[in-house]
């Protein structure tokens, strides 16, 4: 499988077996990178050109991508890959601005407790370093024409990052009807408010934007109904929602309970993996390629659990040494039954015969 990050070139040249090793793409890419780390045959790479603190635990990183970057629309996200202690790690981030004139792109990273990648991006990735990116994707993008009832943007925590791009785009388009864009921003406190001043300034000079803040440290965690009551016409507005998984679930289920509500766009990233509750008897394992699924008991090897459910994944030794049973785990938490190591890394290789599910899983099988 090629990496999610490399756009596979399928032209005949790269596929021609008889030209090997002259068309060995990996080798050519590596040799080019030896000349200049930004050079590549199609992989998007980008140089870190600036880092700026937004709050005490949040910073923005500005990158200059190479020529393979195809651009983006505000609100989209990309996958960024860095190598940390020899391990290649990928994470998805929203692009946090509208497209820029100089071609640079920006993401805003909230430091996660124990987060390997976020801490690395905050503390270690040096200016001038080159990272690998995917092309932008996602449809959390501004509408081509603004509906008469206007827009509602609901953001909690770092969920504000894609919203900033949306706002910048709408502002540049010259949206003017007063109050036609309503932003509800939930933050812990004023100090934790990402883009706080910038948004205040924007709202002050742009009447189209109505800015509502909710500080959960003072006002308690908001209930969806309570929060949305601050924008009484919310049900009519075309709405965008981004924030922590629990918050999003809360707002989403409230939204579904509304009669004839306008559409609600969601942007979620690989939600933080859930630990299996100690009393939960089984988790659900979803197989992406075959579309099949099965229930797996806690502590039992995934291979035997899949077989118990009548599936027949490939296997060899069944003791963890041959890797015949290896597959990619897209999301979820597993435990290695030999070493006891628990891991939630997205897109990692696992061996079914010595891994047990600790949460719902998605496997590339």
């Amino acid at each position, binding site marked *: 499988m090629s990496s999610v990050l490399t756009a596979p070139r399928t032209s005949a040249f790269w596929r021609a077996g008889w030209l090997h090793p002259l068309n060995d793409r990996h080798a050519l890419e590596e040799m080019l990178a030896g000349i200049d780390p930004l050079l590549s045959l199609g992989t998007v790479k980008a140089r870190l050109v600036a880092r700026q603190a937004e709050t005490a635990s949040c910073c923005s990183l500005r990158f200059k991508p190479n020529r393979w970057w195809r651009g983006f629309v505000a609100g989209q996200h990309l996958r960024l890959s860095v190598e940390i202690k020899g391990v290649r790690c990928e994470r998805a981030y929203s692009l946090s601005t509208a497209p820029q004139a100089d071609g640079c792109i920006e993401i805003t990273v909230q430091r996660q407790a124990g987060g390997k990648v976020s801490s690395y991006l905050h503390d270690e990735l040096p200016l001038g370093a080159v990272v690998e990116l995917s092309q932008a994707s996602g449809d959390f993008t501004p509408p081509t024409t603004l509906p008469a009832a206007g827009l509602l943007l609901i953001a909690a925590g770092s969920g504000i990052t894609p919203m900033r791009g949306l706002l910048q785009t709408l502002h540049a388009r010259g949206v003017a009807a007063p109050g036609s864009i309503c932003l509800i921003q939930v933050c812990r406190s004023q100090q934790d408010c990402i883009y706080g001043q910038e948004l205040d300034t924007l709202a002050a000079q742009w009447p189209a934007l109505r800015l509502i803040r909710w500080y959960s440290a003072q006002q308690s965690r908001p209930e969806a109904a309570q929060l949305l009551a601050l924008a009484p016409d919310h049900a009519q507005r075309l709405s965008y929602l981004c924030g922590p998984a629990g918050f999003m679930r809360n707002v989403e289920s409230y939204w579904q309970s509304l009669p004839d509500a306008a559409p609600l766009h969601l942007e979620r990233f690989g939600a933080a993996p859930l630990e299996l509750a100690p009393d939960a008897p089984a988790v659900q394992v979803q197989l992406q390629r075959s579309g099949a699924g099965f229930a797996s008991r806690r502590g039992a090897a995934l291979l035997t659990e899949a077989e118990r459910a009548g599936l027949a994944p490939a296997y060899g030794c069944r003791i963890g040494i041959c890797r*015949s049973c*290896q597959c990619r785990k897209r999301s979820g938490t597993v435990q290695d039954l030999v070493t006891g190591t628990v891991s939630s890394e997205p897109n990692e290789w696992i061996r079914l015969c010595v891994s047990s599910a600790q949460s719902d899983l998605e496997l590339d099988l």
Partner: protein
Amino acid sequence: MSTHTLSRKQIAELQKDLDVIRDEVMSSLGARDAAHIRSMVKIARGSAIAGRGLLAFGFDPISFVLGVAALAHAKILENMEIGHNVLHGQYDWMNDPKLNSQDYDWDNVCDSGMWKHFHNYEHHTYTNILGKDRDYGYTILRLSPEQKWHPLYLLNPIANAVLALAFEWGVGGHDVQAERYFKGEMSFAQMQQRAKPFRRKIRKQLIKDYVLFPLLSFWNAPRVLLGNFLANLIRNLWAYTIIFCGHFPEGTKVFREEDCQNETRGDWYVRQMIGSANIKGSRWFHIMSGHLSHQIEHHLFPDMPAARYAEIAPKVEAVCRKYGLPYNNASIWRQYGTVLGKVLRHALPSSPAALKPATSGA
């Protein structure tokens, strides 16, 4: 098992001791290991470019010899330290698509999928179990008295020489399991089906070394063709020697199927240790042998990055000493000498020492 006298309790302890050694290394994998394998890739690639360049553009015998040497070096390094180890998944933890066991393909006529089946799975799981480990004697050699004698084994020395010279072909065809066709256990069509990936890989390798690169060098085509052939030959001899010294020297044990039922990981560890042999050598010798000169460590921890075997070897040896198990470590001359001795001796009828089932051919 009748090859040692350890109690269940001792085996459980031994398992713990070895798990500790493994966990210590596996939890410390990092940038150093990544840098090692990447530098190996770079060196092998540099040698390949240099070797192919010298062969294609040189005119004189000196550049020919240097070209063959560089290309042989590239092929050996790529097959042994990179290919073999990457295909074991030793670097899967890096999550680098270029160094992943599922995708990697090596410069060898053996299809990597077939290799993973008969090597990673069959050989590493059933190591030295006669009848189950098809790598023991590669189904054509008789290397232990426990293997039943047959007049065809008179050809042992010749078969051995042919296998040495054409090692990649022996390995490449291994998983076709042609012997099952000759025994009537498989139809011709089934064998053809099994051979498909092998045929595909043969085409790729032959085109590369004997069509593409010779043609690209125009008037130098015969020189390139010959040089590539010699480089492949050198690689074959080297790989054969290292690999034969892994399980066949004097002192390595063989096992019967019935001895290995219901094995615990501890039992499996014991079998791996007493069924394998190490070769002494310098750091570069170990690298050029893909660290298979640390066969004992490799068989205990096949998915540990091989460059770490040297650092755990003293600890593994100490475990062997603690439980009174042999730790077979000797020079390449001694190890290969005894292999050759077995090839010759067991060409003729020989029988296991009375009342000592499943021991070595001593």
